């Protein structure tokens, strides 16, 4: 027997039952394409989330009121309001002798209110921030200016708009210098920020910003901070700075050694690790689900091959009569199922890459900074698993075929 003979025999048998062949291949194509799509889109989504966090800066430290477990979410993130983090804490954190490696730190309060221009009235989310916020978050001012240092605490009625919000409120002219009514209080627009791009969960370009105490006293009626963010002069000083912040705040809050902190300090780097592990779990979970479709495809192969064996029982009998040994028959049927999965695997890879590409175009069109990714491992996994499935699910039908009794097979009607 020549090496090419079994392949030719398998090919002839498969094309003889075109529709069944096509449907079986389709099962594998869908399975492989699903694995590739899920892995590709999963990797891109993970990249998006992580890049958003990285954009904020890996040299940032967040200080949130409320205690937390080392690995868990901070209390404030769970909607628990803690009022122990005050403006005086912020002032203390700014002092170089207690926290030497902060280059800038901003307090934050958040809320929402109605903003009105001459033409528009919209409900918006706002942040009350320190003038250092643009340095901390690395934002540029597109037009006008950001807040002066003294405006943080002198209740100035000045407002800075995100780029999208400015364009909505003042579509036909520059917003700078205009007056808006914010929670029925007139505010002067002093600046417009440059476009920052939407993130996975929010669009900062629709935010508006007011000075910290203006927001606390005029808009919210509170005397505490929702959180603070500080920028460290060097990534190498992050751990030191976290320790400095903890020491300072514990002292200021009169905490005993055995008392739990009423705040938590997190670095973006740590947040990245947590996010990476969460998104990894999601990615693998989705991959497992996609792999199920490969398994279904494999069962399809087994079903199709079993039908094939029973339909071709006379053929098997004849082949054995003219000298085929069980190993020839097994080989023939295994090649057929391997052929189905190879073809399905190749087509599935092409389809998977194509669909992932189409998805990336759509997501980009929606305004996300999406990267088109096809992890090499997904190709290897999709193709390899489908080939293994083809052989594993092809073995039983092949052995069954090889055990056909020649005479019975030849008489089979």
């Amino acid at each position, binding site marked *: 027997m020549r090496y090419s003979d079994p392949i030719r025999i398998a090919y*002839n048998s498969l094309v*003889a039952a075109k529709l069944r062949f096509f449907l079986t291949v389709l099962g594998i194509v869908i399975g492989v394409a699903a694995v590739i799509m899920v892995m590709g889109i999963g990797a891109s989504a993970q990249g998006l989330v992580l890049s958003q966090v990285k954009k904020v800066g890996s040299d940032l430290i967040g200080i949130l009121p409320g205690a937390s477990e080392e690995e868990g979410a901070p209390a404030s993130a769970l909607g628990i309001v803690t009022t122990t983090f005050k403006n005086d804490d912020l002032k203390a954190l700014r002092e170089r002798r207690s926290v030497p490696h902060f280059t800038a730190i901003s307090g934050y309060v958040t809320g929402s209110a109605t903003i009105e221009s001459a033409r528009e009235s919209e409900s918006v989310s706002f942040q009350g921030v320190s003038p250092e916020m643009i340095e901390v978050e690395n934002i540029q001012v597109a037009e006008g200016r950001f807040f002066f240092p003294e405006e943080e605490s002198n209740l100035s009625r000045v407002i800075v708009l995100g780029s999208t919000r400015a364009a909505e409120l003042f579509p036909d002219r520059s917003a700078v210098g205009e007056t808006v009514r914010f929670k029925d209080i007139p505010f002067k627009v002093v600046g417009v920020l440059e476009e920052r791009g939407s993130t996975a969960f929010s669009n900062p370009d629709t935010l508006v910003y007011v000075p910290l105490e203006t927001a606390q006293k005029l808009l919210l009626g509170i005397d505490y901070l929702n959180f603070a963010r500080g920028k460290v002069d060097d990534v190498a000083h992050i751990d030191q700075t976290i320790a400095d912040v903890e020491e300072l705040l514990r002292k200021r809050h009169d905490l005993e050694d055995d008392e739990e902190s009423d705040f938590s300090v997190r670095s973006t780097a740590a947040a990245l690790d947590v996010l990476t592990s969460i998104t990894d779990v999601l990615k693998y979970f989705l991959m497992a689900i996609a792999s199920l479709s490969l398994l279904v495809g494999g069962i399809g192969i087994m079903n199709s091959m079993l039908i094939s064996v029973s339909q071709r029982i006379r053929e098997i009998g004849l082949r054995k009569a003219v000298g*085929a040994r*069980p190993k020839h028959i097994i080989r023939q049927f295994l090649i057929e199922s391997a052929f189905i999965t190879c073809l399905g695997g190749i087509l599935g890879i092409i389809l998977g890459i194509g669909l992932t590409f189409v998805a990336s175009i759509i997501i980009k069109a929606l305004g996300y900074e999406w990267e088109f990714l096809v992890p090499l491992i997904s190709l290897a996994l999709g193709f390899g698993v489908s080939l293994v499935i083809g052989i594993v699910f092809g073995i039983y039908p092949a052995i069954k075929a090889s055990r056909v009794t020649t*005479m019975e097979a030849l008489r089979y009607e």
Partner: protein
Amino acid sequence: MTLITAKNLSKIYDNEGVKTQALADASFSIEKGEFVAIMGPSGSGKSTLMQILGLLDRPTGGTYFLKDKDVSKMTDDELAQMRNSEIGFVFQAFNLLPRTTVFENVELPLLYDEHPIKDTKERVMEALRAVNLEHRAFYYSNQLSGGEKQRAAIARALVNDPAIIFADEPTGNLDSKSGLQVMLILQALNESGATIILVTHETDTAEHAKRIIRMLDGRIVSDELVANRQFANSKGELTK
């Protein structure tokens, strides 16, 4: 040269405890170049005997030597190898692969030869020439008439140059004219030296052979030369 030596061959089928004796005490020998018909009504054991002689089944008793080899001691793989090199089969129902060309059907035994064959094409065409079917080589098997199908099946039986050709009711599915053409081919092959064993229940067909072994209820009841041999001519007519 003695090709087949059968001594006291017997076959008992055991179907869930129910034992049926299909063949008992069959002893005979067949020389190279013979044309033997095994004849008998349904259930006489002629098909069982052919299956054993054709190495498709094993006897439950007795000994069977094919070309001086004791085949009852061979493994399944060795039997497959013997079938491939020493035996050609022609079946009543032709058993050609559908949606496959005549050429590929005839080529089939060569694919399972232990040693790769280089002159496959020549050998297939030669076999087709012997049954006068060269012009149909690249037709699909289902495009052929019944007689042509059986000739293609004979070409397949010839292609590996076997020691014996077994023909199991080869005219059973054919009209009388096509049947006679098939018998003419078998006779011509026998004239050129092939050993042929024909299984049939029809006296007319059996009388094309040189020797008839008659069977009844699993036993050989007679074994004699044909006195009045029938011959077919190329027009599909009988000439005695």
